[in-house]
């Protein structure tokens, strides 16, 4: 008879969980990188006074922030097959794979949230700083590069830290489209050993550790980057907050 918590099963499954952990971290890092690449330029354009530029970006962020990530993932993983053009295109061998669909869906999702974070931070750059730069004769692009973006980065740091934690946790959805991430690996072990609570508690603890390592890591970076501004109270939250 199995005991209350069969640790042997957990011990024996560690190699599988480790390879799952690697996939989880890969997905997280690649999503973060993809999200940044998309959201910095689009975040800048989102603050454009021209509605033909900011409007479509608003529509994109509204759609992705107003619908569940799970459905977005399914829309890409199952949905794209509906179109013959996609199936016969050269991209099909990529978009057939759960892993790549996850990367696309997660990146589009996090970019939507991050664009609004970037745009919000840009709007909160003190007007006086921008005016001073203008008075010095800087061009709009130089102002953006030297004044607005550095100040905005500092403002958005806490919110972005939180976003990274959300990405980390959301990668668990990958297990629903056959990806062997941490959650996927645990489910395979459970199908074999029938030990659900041992495995789910174990991976829960791993996610917990990853979450707080991420939070502490980013707080450490923030403290060092902005050491000269320590008197300001802009520290990263102790726990993840709502997106």
């Amino acid at each position, binding site marked *: 008879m*199995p005991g209350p918590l069969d640790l042997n099963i957990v011990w024996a499954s560690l190699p599988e969980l480790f390879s799952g952990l690697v996939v989880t971290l890969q997905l997280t890092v690649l999503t973060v990188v993809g999200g940044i690449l998309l959201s910095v330029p689009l975040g800048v354009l989102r603050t454009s006074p021209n509605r033909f530029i900011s409007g479509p970006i608003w529509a994109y962020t*509204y*759609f992705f922030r*107003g*619908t*569940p*990530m*799970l*459905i*977005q993932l*399914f*829309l890409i993983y*199952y*949905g*794209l*097959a*509906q*179109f013959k053009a996609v199936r016969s295109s050269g991209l099909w061998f990529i978009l057939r794979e759960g892993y790549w669909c996850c990367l696309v869906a997660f990146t589009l999702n996090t970019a939507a949230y991050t664009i609004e974070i970037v745009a919000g931070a840009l709007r909160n750059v003190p007007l006086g700083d921008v005016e001073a730069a203008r008075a010095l004769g800087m061009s709009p692009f130089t102002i953006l590069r030297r004044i607005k973006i550095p100040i905005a980065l500092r403002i958005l740091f806490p919110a972005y830290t939180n976003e990274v934690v959300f990405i980390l*946790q*959301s990668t*668990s*959805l990958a*297990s*629903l489209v056959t990806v062997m991430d941490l*959650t996927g690996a645990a*489910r395979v072990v*459970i199908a074999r050993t*029938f*030990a*659900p*609570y041992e495995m*789910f*508690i174990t*991976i*829960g603890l791993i*996610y*917990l550790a990853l*979450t*707080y390592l991420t939070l502490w890591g980013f707080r450490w970076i923030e403290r060092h980057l902005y050491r000269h501004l320590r008197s300001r109270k802009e520290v990263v939250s102790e*726990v*993840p*907050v*709502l*997106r």
Partner: protein
Amino acid sequence: MALPAFLDLKGYGHLLIDGALVTVSVGVAAMLVALTLGILGALARLSKNRLLRAVGATYATVIRGIPELVLMLLVYYGGTVLLQELLSLGGTEVRVDINAFMAGTLVVGFVYGAYATEIFRGAFLAVPRGQSEAGQAYGMSNAQVFLRIELPQAWRLAIPGLGNLWLTLLKATSITSVIGLTELARQADLIKAPTKMPFTVFFMACLLYLAMTAVSDLVRMRAERWASSGFRRS
């Protein structure tokens, strides 16, 4: 009920509407759980009792560090096996089926209760202490001070945060589909094959979620206006 042509989906469209109704029901039920846990959690975190404070802090810290999907699977599959083993200790082999609606409501409520705890904690802290003290000076009991002075004002301060919580919670109910609850995401998943239009089906599901978001936004704006009536901005 006749559906507009674009929502018909070869006759399967009404299933999406059914799913959306289940989504709203799970959402509302889970929100009630979250609000209850949020108030209790905030009271625990603000209490003078060290043990209660530790329980409140652990709840907020642990739940937010674990993905909802993992918690959902843990409670549903883990809970089933655990109950089965506990019951079979008595010698009889029993088959346990946890109700998906209950499990989904409880897990989503439990997760978002952890976020609600933080919202209510901030709101309770923002109620001026002098007011609670004035209540005590009138001879109100602790419960009376809480119910008549602190809670009504904390509600008002919590409403913007709670509006945001509701929008996130509503989307999060989609993970109850993994335990077989036939809400919107699950219905879309079920009809994607028979309709042979997976993209259209999931896109329609997205539009239904957006419609719920838009309605919630309107309600939230009204609630915020209602909550701030009688208060002037300085």
